């Protein structure tokens, strides 16, 4: 493992450098090979790592070198392999490989082809660093680096101003979260004298740390997670991030990067478990985000934006789970979500691709027969997202809701249920608007509709299979399946602190399952009524009835506008005031004022300086006379 582990992130890094430096002049249209092979290689190595860690009690740590050694602050570049990072590795490399392959077809012919693959490789490297790092500072490194790649990839079409500013918005919003994360890391160091996971967690388990400090650490870390995982109120960047190419949305803004927050909270489970208030905040924010984002997703017309809000909402689910201490369901949902959301994104990418770039669902419809592969795989993804039995999403979502209910979080459970209903509705709204009914396409576009190339369809099918089967394979029985068994050792300490004991599968679980299935199906049914049965009048009517509400939702609850008017306006105006008034006015005014004072003094005395040598000589002579006289007289 000592050699294998560092190789996992190293392969994409090498691919990045090769592609970046040779891509433009040499690799050109074949720039995809090296990144794909590197990614596949990483996947193989990850499988090896998975096999190695299976059933191990303790984490493996491989230290490469001391990164920052200053006094008692010693941070190594070290990788930690345990069950959690192994799962993340598999998701990142697995889904990553598929999306790399997909990108070959999707990005074909783009002038920035090599650049795209270089960025993707860099992203893969960063993400792998994030999940493999053995201390908080490396986590922070990966954290920022994935943010950077996200910045580049969102702004991939940099000549589009909207893309460029979306990238900037993403980075800055993340920075706000990282502000907390960074402080949290410092507080961890100051409190525990180390940043290594193993050391810190051991110290927390050992007890003796004041709960206030743990709460502060938890909240600060969660602030970072809110930024990265787009939780309210830092969710604003994710929908805008859809300016990036679709594979990017699938890989970064659905499957991997945005789940980093979930990973981080799960990784710090021991800390959160020791600070119940922090967990409460995590759960509340998650639940609120779940329903809040879902509500916006209801009315969006851009196919990718629907997905984006859905992602935000699903991430909310994961935090909801973490908030109740359901670590394993959260990670489980992370995994299944990675499959079906990547699938949905790639599928909508395939739709967009076949329509020559059209993203507005109002200009689609009736595509089912024209692009059947895409259609059927998307259906699988939609059922998974809606949480319909036995698709993948059902199992993980049900676990989350079930654990909330059983843990006494009835309000959160109810919120989650409502959100699930909305989710089912908007998911199938998307399906129906896109594939069913009459065609609303431009005739010009319609002529060119075509099924996507194989390199795009094959990843779709693989993900489709996973969306259908992965949940049942890994999640039966709920809370005791293969997945849970595998992850058990990682969360053992946290569960001990929380005092959770494992319950056997019982009748209550079945009831809850049926309830959530019913909710999901009713959402699907309602969507069917709205968009298949009466697409011409019912949606309008519904919108008209709840006019103010509809408008608010359509405008994303005006969050962007509020930020613009308050924080951003204030910062810019305040800065301008500082510059114009304080800097140029007060400080420089004082400096120049002193200079002006001397200038005036100079003007007063300068006439004495006639410029004529003899005048000066006479004055000298008079002076001499005075001195001599004085000497003689006295």
């Amino acid at each position, binding site marked *: 493992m000592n050699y294998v582990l560092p190789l996992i992130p190293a392969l994409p890094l090498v691919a990045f450098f090769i592609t970046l430096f040779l891509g433009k002049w040499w690799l050109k249209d074949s720039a995809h090979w090296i990144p794909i092979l590197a990614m596949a290689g990483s996947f193989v190595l990850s499988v090896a790592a998975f096999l190695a860690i299976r059933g191990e009690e303790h984490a493996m740590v491989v230290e490469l070198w001391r990164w920052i050694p200053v006094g008692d602050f010693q941070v190594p570049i070290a990788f930690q392999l345990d069950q959690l990072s192994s799962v993340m590795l598999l998701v990142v490399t697995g889904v990553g490989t598929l999306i790399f392959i997909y990108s070959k077809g999707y990005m074909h012919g783009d002038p920035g082809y090599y650049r795209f693959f270089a960025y993707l490789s860099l992203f893969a490297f960063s993400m792998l660093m994030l999940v493999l790092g053995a201390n908080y500072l490396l986590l922070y490194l990966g954290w920022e680096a994935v943010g950077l790649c996200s910045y580049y990839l969102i702004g991939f079409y940099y000549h589009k101003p909207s893309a460029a500013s979306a990238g900037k918005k993403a980075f800055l919003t993340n920075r706000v979260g990282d502000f907390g994360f960074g402080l949290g890391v410092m507080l961890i160091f100051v409190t525990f004298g180390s940043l290594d996971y193993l050391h810190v967690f051991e110290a927390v388990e050992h007890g003796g740390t004041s709960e206030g400090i743990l709460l502060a650490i938890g909240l600060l870390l969660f602030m970072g997670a809110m930024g990265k995982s787009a939780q309210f109120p830092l969710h604003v960047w994710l929908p805008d991030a859809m300016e990036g190419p679709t594979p990017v949305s699938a890989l970064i803004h659905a499957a991997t990067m945005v789940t980093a927050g979930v990973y981080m909270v799960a990784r710090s489970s021991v800390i959160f478990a020791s600070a119940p208030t922090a967990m409460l905040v995590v759960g509340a924010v998650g639940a609120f985000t779940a329903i809040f984002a879902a509500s916006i997703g209801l009315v969006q017309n851009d196919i990718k934006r629907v997905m984006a809000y859905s992602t935000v909402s699903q991430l909310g689910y994961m935090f909801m789970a973490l908030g109740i201490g359901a670590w394993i369901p959260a990670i489980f949902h992370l995994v299944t979500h990675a499959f079906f959301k990547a699938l949905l994104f790639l599928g909508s990418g395939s739709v967009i691709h076949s329509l020559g770039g059209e993203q507005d669902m109002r200009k689609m419809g009736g595509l089912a027969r024209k692009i059947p592969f895409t259609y059927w795989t998307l259906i699988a993804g939609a059922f998974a997202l809606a949480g319909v039995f036995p698709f993948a999403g059902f199992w993980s979502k049900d676990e989350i809701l079930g654990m909330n209910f059983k843990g006494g979080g009835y309000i959160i459970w109810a919120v989650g249920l409502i959100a699930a209903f909305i989710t089912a509705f908007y998911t199938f709204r998307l399906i129906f608007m896109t594939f069913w009914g009459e065609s609303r396409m431009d005739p010009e576009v319609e002529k060119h509709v075509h099924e996507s190339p194989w390199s795009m369809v094959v990843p779709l099918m693989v993900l489709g299979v996973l969306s259908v089967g992965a949940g049942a394979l890994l999640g039966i029985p709920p809370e005791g399946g293969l997945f849970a068994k595998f992850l058990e050792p990682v969360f053992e300490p946290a569960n001990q602190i929380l005092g959770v004991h494992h319950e056997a599968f019982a009748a209550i679980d079945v009831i809850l399952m049926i309830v959530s299935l019913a909710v999901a199906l009713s959402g699907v049914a309602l969507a069917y009524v709205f968009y298949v049965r009466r697409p011409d009048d019912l949606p309008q009517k519904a919108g008209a009835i709840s006019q103010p509400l509809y408008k608010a939702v359509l405008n994303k609850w005006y969050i962007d506008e509020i930020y613009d008017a308050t924080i951003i306006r204030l910062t810019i105006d305040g800065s301008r005031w500082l510059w114009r008034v304080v800097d140029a006015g007060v400080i420089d005014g004082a400096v120049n004022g002193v200079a002006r004072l001397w200038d005036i003094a*100079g003007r007063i*005395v300068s006439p*004495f*300086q006639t*410029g*004529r040598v*003899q005048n000066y*000589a006479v004055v000298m*002579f008079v002076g001499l006379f005075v001195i001599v006289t004085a000497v003689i007289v006295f």
Partner: protein
Amino acid sequence: MVIPIEWYLVLSAFLFAIGAAGVLMRRNLFIVLFSIELMMNAVNINLVGFSRLHENLIGQNFVLFTMTVAAAEAAIGLAIVTALYRNRRTLMVDMFDVMKG
């Protein structure tokens, strides 16, 4: 000593005062230079007089150096005069007031 030292000193004082007056009140740059030479000569007289009084040759030696400096000064002074005249076509000292504040 045949001639009292005071005589030298008084003569020197006269020449110096005349030279100084010339420097201070004449407008013609040449006359100013002449006046400077006069003042230098006044000093030389002093030096020679004291050399005689103290019965040594230090003063006389010194006069040689004064003359050296006077020669150099005259050479450079005249060079400046020509340069000035070439540029400004006047030699009236009070016309040169570029440094006026």
